[in-house]
């Protein structure tokens, strides 16, 4: 139906390699979100799937067909552009109808299709208006309707909500999720807003500098990040990453673990932890306190560096000097390349970063 496969895709602009040997499979019917910082190649990837840009190397498959060299109109892909790209000289009706006429859909059928679509996106009263006379949200719906009416196998949306205000964005987010559930087609969605990604996607692809950092479901990304970049991209505030050269110790098997840093999420750090909890204890000084109502966020300076702590439904601490406990099972370890070390776990020990080293054991079969 709408399975997309990118095989070894590279894209050069002049000598600059913007996408580097990308492999990605997008499940049929999934809501796949591409996230990443500005300039990491999200739009370029989408445009290659749509056929608006040609990849320099590699193959793109949609279902069982290699679409290399197939023009955009024949790929059965519809795209919603960031700036909507509505046809300014045509009214809403004509905008939606344009593609249908090109597809030689008979007039009767066109009328019915457009009428149905207009009802779905709530545009029935605006059919005679030109795009310039519509609000941002309405334009976005026109763009959606224009894409939907073609009943494509794949929907491609490039930051469709970035021009809307916060409230409307929230509303459209919900509408898009419902739309996806109703249509059941594949959605490929680009954003650089991680909240949008987490709330909408059932599969998230984190990209950086043209390379996929991790592709997984939202909860997997949160619980089991593959590297420092993915770990820090998801969650606000971002995961704390602190150096831990002192942890480079012989493992149980006698090998050295290359642990360059460790991390923990701000919401997993505890003030006043019961003594029964085994964990890493960090002493520090509170630099700033932010209260957002239900949650409080602290910036804390420790001997290993700055980190943040998030607490829920607890009164704001007024202490300056605090001890923070992070349960051992909440710690993540990374090597010097920033890759996650999954098999490592600290079972017992004292404060990291002190001369007294904790004992490291390998679980699940060593490195």
């Amino acid at each position, binding site marked *: 139906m709408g399975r997309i496969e990118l095989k070894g895709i590279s894209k050069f602009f002049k000598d600059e390699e913007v996408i580097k040997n990308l492999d990605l499979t997008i499940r049929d019917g999934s809501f796949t979100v591409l996230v990443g910082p500005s300039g990491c190649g999200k739009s370029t990837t989408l445009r290659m799937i749509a056929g608006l840009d040609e990849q320099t190397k590699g193959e793109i498959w949609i279902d069982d067909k290699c679409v290399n060299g197939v023009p955009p109109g024949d790929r059965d892909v519809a795209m919603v552009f960031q*700036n909507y790209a*509505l046809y300014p000289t045509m009214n809403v009706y004509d905008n939606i109808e*344009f593609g249908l006429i*090109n597809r030689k859909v008979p007039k009767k059928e066109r009328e019915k299709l457009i009428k149905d679509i207009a009802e779905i996106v709530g545009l029935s009263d605006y059919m005679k208006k030109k795009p310039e006379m519509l609000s941002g949200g309405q334009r976005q719906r026109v763009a959606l309707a*224009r894409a939907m009416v073609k009943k494509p196998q794949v929907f491609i949306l490039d930051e469709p909500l970035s021009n809307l205000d916060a409230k409307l964005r929230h509303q459209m987010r919900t509408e898009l999720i419902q739309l996806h559930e109703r249509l059941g087609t594949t959605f490929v969605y680009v954003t650089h807003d991680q909240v949008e990604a987490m709330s909408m996607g059932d599969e998230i692809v984190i990209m950086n500098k043209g390379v996929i950092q991790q592709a997984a479901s939202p909860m997997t990304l949160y619980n089991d990040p593959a590297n420092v970049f993915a770990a820090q991209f998801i969650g606000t505030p971002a995961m704390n990453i602190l150096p831990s050269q002192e942890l480079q110790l012989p493992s149980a098997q006698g090998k050295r673990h290359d642990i360059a840093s460790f991390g923990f999420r701000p919401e997993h750090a505890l003030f006043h932890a019961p003594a029964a909890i085994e964990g890493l204890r960090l002493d520090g000084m509170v630099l700033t306190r932010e209260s957002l109502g239900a949650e409080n966020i602290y910036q804390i300076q420790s001997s290993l560096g700055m980190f943040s702590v998030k607490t829920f439904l607890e009164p704001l601490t007024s202490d300056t000097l605090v001890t923070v406990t992070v349960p051992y099972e909440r710690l993540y370890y990374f090597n010097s390349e920033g890759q996650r070390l999954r098999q490592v776990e600290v079972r017992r020990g004292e404060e990291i970063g002190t001369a007294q080293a904790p004992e490291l054991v390998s679980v699940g079969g060593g490195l």
Partner: protein
Amino acid sequence: MTSRLWEKLKPYGMISPSLAVFGIFFIYPIFYMIYLSFFDWNFVSPTKNYVGLQNFTDLLSDKEFMQVLLNTTIYTFATVSLTLSISLAIALWLNRSGLFYGFVQGAIFSPHIISLVSISLLWSWLMDPEYGLLNWVIGLFGLSPLQWLSHPDTSLMSLILVAVWKGIGFNTLVFIAGLQSIPPSIYEAAALDRSKRWRTFRKLTLPMLSPTLFFLAIMSMIGSFQVFETIAIMTQGGPVNSTNTLVYYIYEYGFRFFKIGYASAAGVMLLIIVGVLTIIYFRMLSKRVHYR
């Protein structure tokens, strides 16, 4: 009180120099021309005879004047439609980046900055029936030579050719600017909508270009109605009035036959024609053509 009055007057004081220039060189001559069109005067005699609408009735019953109006109209419509369609085609071709295209853009624009007098002399020479380059080129193709400016059948056409040649550069440049203001994503959306090239041009490019198109059309119409230099230098309205146009006609009656009143009446006609075109332009601008 006085200071507030001063506040109100200050802006007027500041624009008064340009207002004065505008009044002396634009407003006053127009009204003076309208005034003169009701008189019979030869430029030098101390008295002007009031003749009422006589100049206008003479003008409208003059066969020569009708011929002049017809020539001007043909000249204008041919020049404008040819210039616009050729410029648009060239602009569509040149609207891409690259050294070559930049060079062609510059080359095509150059006639626009050459003075009309030089252009007229140059083309008179090119169009010379016996020694001209054009006839030589035509001869290469085995065709019989044309008389160009020296024959009533081809003279107006020759002038149109020169006007088109001169006008293409500027019009192309403005068209390219117009094309570049169309966001590329519109074309990408059209590609995803399976729009064919010709349909994209007709349904998207042309409508989005219509403000530019209309602006150029009116501007070159107004310009063509006032054509003078090429005619004065290349044909002097001949042969047998075949290239006599409105402004040249006014010039001849005013400054060669010294019938100032009669020439002024013709000038008033020109004013009306250009005025109507301008009004149409602004009307259309505020209505259909503007889509944003």
